[in-house]
Every structure is written in C-alpha cells, then in structure tokens.
C-alpha cells in the first residue's frame, strides 16, 4: 500500500503514468483495430497478432542496424508484413476460414509458436531497440520525462488510424471488406470475390501490425517472446469496445494503457504481465455475468 501513498504524495508520477499510458494506448489501439478487422470480416481471432507486431519491430531494427533511420521502418515493415500476411493466408489461413472458431484459433496459435521460435533462432533471444535518437523533454523540474519518440509515436499512430478508417470507408476494397463483414454470402452473390477480400483483410491486418511493431521497436523494446501480451491486449480492447466501434477502440486502448502504467507503480513491474492477463480474466468473467443478467431479464 506504500506505493499508493507514494502516488498520492508525488502527483508527478501520476502525470507521467497518464502520459505514458495514453501513448501506449494509441499503439495498442492500432493493433487492436487490425484484430477487429480480421475478427469482424473473417470470424478469426488471430493469436499470431502479437508475433506480427514483433516481426515488424525486427524489420525496423534491422534497418536501424543497417544505418537507415528506423522511421523508414514504419512503411517498410508495413510492406514486408503485408507480403508475409498474404503468404500465410494463401498457405494456412484460407484453409481454416470457414471452419469452427476453435480450429482457426488453434491454427493461429500454432502460427504464433512457429513465428516466435523462428524469430528466436534467426534473430536471437536478446532484447533489441531501434534507437530513433530524437532526444527527450522534461516537465515539472525534471520530474516527468517525455522522450520525443513517444510524441512521434502518438502522432504516427493517430495518423495511421485515421488513414485506415478513411480507406475502409471510401475505397472500393474497403467497401468490399465491409460488405463481406456484413454478409459474406450476399457479398458473393453481388459479385465480390470474398476470397480476395479475406486475403486482403488478413494482409492489411499484418501490415498494420508491422507498422505498429516498428513503432514499438523505437518506443520500447522487442524480443521474440513478447508477442503474446500484444495479442491479449488487442483482444481485450476489441471485446471491450465491440467490433467496428472506433471511438470505443481508442477509449479502451487508452484505458488499458493507463491502467497498466498505474499497475506498474502499485504492484511492481514484475507483475505487469500477470496484471494484463488477470485483467483479461476478470473482464471476461464480469462481462459473462452482465450478459447472464441480461438474459435473465429477457426471460
């Protein structure tokens, strides 16, 4: 409980936590938006989401190693992951698209393990950072630090998110994606090549994750085994917000980001993962209870 007192006595810590939380939340929201896309259109919960993020992070990291500024990693990772996503769709995902939900869940779980282990073998298990070198600002007498890369990250994620929303709303493919999400069969009858739509949706999601990952590699750090928490956060954001609810996604993402930062102060950083996963369990159980209550009322 000392930690809570500390937070009250030193309000700067709260400011820091909220600022960090909002920036992290923007990143989570971006990955969650991709997950919601795949879930809504293809009825697949992609457990490999986090691995796509980390893979994108490695793309940025290798650009950085090669002497190129990692900011270029954002579009490059997007393109690379788009190709990876398309390949995975053609090899694995299209076989499980219309199967039982658990089958696709398990298939993407297998993909997640596969990618994780391949990254471990090829890139090593070390923690890597792509240094953007933007410097740091301080507020309140050096009590609150803001690395500039975090501000950049926030702006870039907001920009990418907006771009994506406009693309889904306006473009021909975006319309096809939304039509397929509403009713795949009717879309097929209307002449939409749903298989192509599925492939594009899955690749688009991978590309979003790749761009997110490049930002993660610059803002935080990556290593092969850190993917699953990103999957779980995305999942949590999607079920909190509901499918296709963009303001909800942003709110839930920011909320989880801030909650995590405060949990770090209160329980200690070593319990961060446990906190995320227990939050998921608690939220799901609470949600189940609420749904059950609704059902009783309907009776």
């Amino acid at each position, binding site marked *: 409980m000392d930690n809570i007192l500390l937070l009250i006595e030193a309000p700067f810590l709260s400011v820091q936590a909220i600022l960090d939380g909002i920036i992290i939340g923007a990143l989570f929201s971006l990955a969650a938006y991709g997950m919601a896309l795949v879930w809504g259109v293809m009825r697949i*919960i992609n457990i490999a989401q986090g691995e796509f993020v980390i893979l994108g992070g490695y793309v940025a990291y290798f650009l950085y190693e090669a002497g190129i500024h990692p900011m270029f990693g954002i579009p490059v990772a997007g393109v690379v992951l788009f190709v990876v996503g398309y390949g995975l769709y053609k090899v*694995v995902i299209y*076989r*499980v698209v219309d*199967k*039982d*939900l*658990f*089958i696709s*869940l*398990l*298939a993407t*779980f*297998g*993909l*997640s*393990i*596969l*990618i*994780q*282990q*391949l990254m*471990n*073998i090829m890139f090593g298990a070390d923690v890597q950072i792509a240094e953007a070198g933007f410097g740091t600002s301080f507020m309140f007498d050096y009590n609150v630090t803001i690395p500039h890369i975090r501000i950049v990250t926030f702006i870039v994620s907001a920009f990418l998110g907006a771009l994506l929303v406009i693309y889904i709303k306006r473009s021909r493919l975006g319309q096809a994606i939304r039509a397929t999400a509403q009713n795949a069969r009717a879309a097929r009858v209307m002449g939409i090549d749903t298989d192509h739509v599925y492939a594009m949706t899955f690749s688009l999601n991978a590309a979003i994750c790749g761009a997110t990952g490049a930002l993660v590699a610059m803002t935080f750090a990556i290593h092969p085994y850190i993917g*699953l928490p990103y999957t*779980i956060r995305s*999942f949590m954001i999607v*079920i909190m917000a509901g499918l296709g609810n963009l303001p909800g996604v942003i709110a839930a993402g920011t909320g989880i980001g801030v909650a995590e930062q405060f949990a770090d102060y209160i329980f*200690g950083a*070593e*319990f961060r*993962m*446990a906190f995320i*996963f*227990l939050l*998921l*369990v608690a939220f*799901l*159980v609470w*949600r*189940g*209870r609420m749904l*059950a209550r609704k059902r009783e009322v309907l009776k």
Partner: protein
Amino acid sequence: MSTTSTGNTGSTNPLLYIVILAFGIAAPFVMPAYIQQVSFLWIFILFALTWDLQGGQMGYNSFGNIVFFGTGMYVSASTQVALYFDLGAWNESGGENTFIHATDEYFIGLAAGLVLSGIVAAALAAFLGSGILGLRGQYFAICTLGLSVAAGEIAAGIDLIGAGSGMSTPVWPDAADSVIERGTFFYILCFMLAVATFIACKYLYSGRFGMVLNAIRDDEDKAEAMGIHTTRYKALSWTISAFFLGISGAIMGNIIGFIDPVDVAFTGATFGVWMVLMAILGGKGTLWGPVLGAAIFHIMQELFWTYFLGWQRVALGLLIILIVVFLPQGILGSLREHFPEWFGHRLEPVAVEDEK
C-alpha cells in the same frame, strides 16, 4: 453435426486392455533405459484424457488446464518441504546440502504432497470454474489462455516458493534404493495414475454424466432448458480433470526434481498446448482418441528432440498447424468417417442408383 458419440458404444476388444497393461507392467524391465520417457507417456495420456473431458466431450476448449498441473506441482513440493523444514530457508539455499529428508520423511511427505496437490487443484478448479465456465466458445478459450500465462507470472513473483529462480524438490533418499529404484518408483506412480484416470473417464462417459457433457457440447441452451443444471456439471468436470492433473503435476515435479515457474510448472507453450494437440490428433470426443493421440504425439516429440535439436519447437509449431488444418477430426474421427462399421455404427443399405 457428424456422428460424434462418446466412442464407447462399441465394446472394446479386451485384448487391447491386456496388451496395454502388459506393456505397462513389462516396460520397466524390458527397456529400463527409457523408463522416464515411458513415465512421461503415461502422464501425457493423462493430459489428453483430462483435456478431452472438457474440450472433446463438453465442447469447452481450455488452454488453461496447465494451471492445475503447475499448482499441483508447487503444492506438493511445498508440502514435502514444509512438513520438515522452513520453506523460505529451503528456497533461499536452493534446497542444497543442509536440508536432507530421511527416508521415512521423504515418503510420508510425498504421500501428503500427492493427496494435497490433488485436493488443492480440484478446489481451485471449482473456484475458478464458477466464474470462467460461464463464458462460451472462444471467450472461454482465450480466458483460460490468459489464466495459464498469468499463473506462471504470479508464481515467478512469489518469493516464498522460489520466485523466478525456481524451487527444487526433496532429494531421493539413497537408502531407499535397496528396495526400489527412483525411476521405477515414479514410473509405477505415473502408470497407476494414468490407469486410474482412464477408468474414471470410462466410468463417467458410460453413464448420465457423459450424456450431460455431450448434451452441453451439442446445445447448451437446450440442455439447460431440459432442466439440467449445466454450470454444476461443467464445474464438476473441470474439478475432476484438475484433481488428476494436480496429482500428475506433483509426480512430474518430483521426477524432474526442479520446478521452474514458466518452463516446468506453468508451461503454457509446451504441455499446455500439447494436451490440446494430443486430444485433437487422436480424435477429440472419444475415449480412445486421446490415448492414441498421446502415444503418437509422444513418439513424434521424442523424435523431434533427437533429430531436429534446436529446431524442435519450430517443428512443433508446424505440427500444430498441420494437424489442425489437415486432421481436425483426429485419427479416430477420420477413421470413423471412412469405416463407420469398425466403431459399431451400422450402415443402412441404401439403394445406389448409379454405379461406376
């Protein structure tokens, strides 16, 4: 839905039981070098059977059954130590040198640990089940996945049980070697536990309980409307699984001799997924499917470890995808589809109009 009856409709050839029992009894004499591998085989069969109790029979696909395994492991090890020594001091020293269990202390502690681990794991399942089993479908699956990771992270943060650096189990007393060897002793435990699990499953599936589970899988709302208290049955099924898993964890901890929170106890990425995979490989929703799947998977897994060293986990990831994509019905499920008469399903002769 295709015909997925419990799989115990046809009578099993008694020869099969005799062969398996004979193998189980003869294994420590015939291949003493592989005794640990065969012990693991029995535990794997138990994994698959207990997973299938929810996943196959009840339609609740859990990624979190490993929680009970790990809990059992820690409960047993802590009991064995705490009965005679100070648990905190034991873990600080890494369980070395100064703390040696006498022969009788070791076996009394082990017995107490085995019993307690089963009971605590079952109680945990009953507690968790009341909340989590209210979830449906993919929400249940992901919730249990979160639970399994969280459990490992929490265990890694508790200093009393060794935190992230793990905990060692009591050392086998050398004096006992004159009566029975360590490997053989734990082999017998594993074998007996697996047989007990199989008998329990067979008994449960042959009665009302199995029917209720299948009714929940086929249509839970309808089952509820028929007056079945589904939540109670779901929790009971999880509790039974947890009981056996807890004991298996206790044995496993003592076989391996060292408990790491993430790599040995709460191994979501290995045992946690394998139990799902084994049941699916053999054919979920059948009695013999998990047994067959566990046996085949165990052999494959050992081969991977021998021939693809370093790449074994990649190979396993690939294996998951291959099984799920190409064999979602499992071996027994596919066989049943192609040769239904082998499983006691009678085919009605249908007039074939056009023969080619």
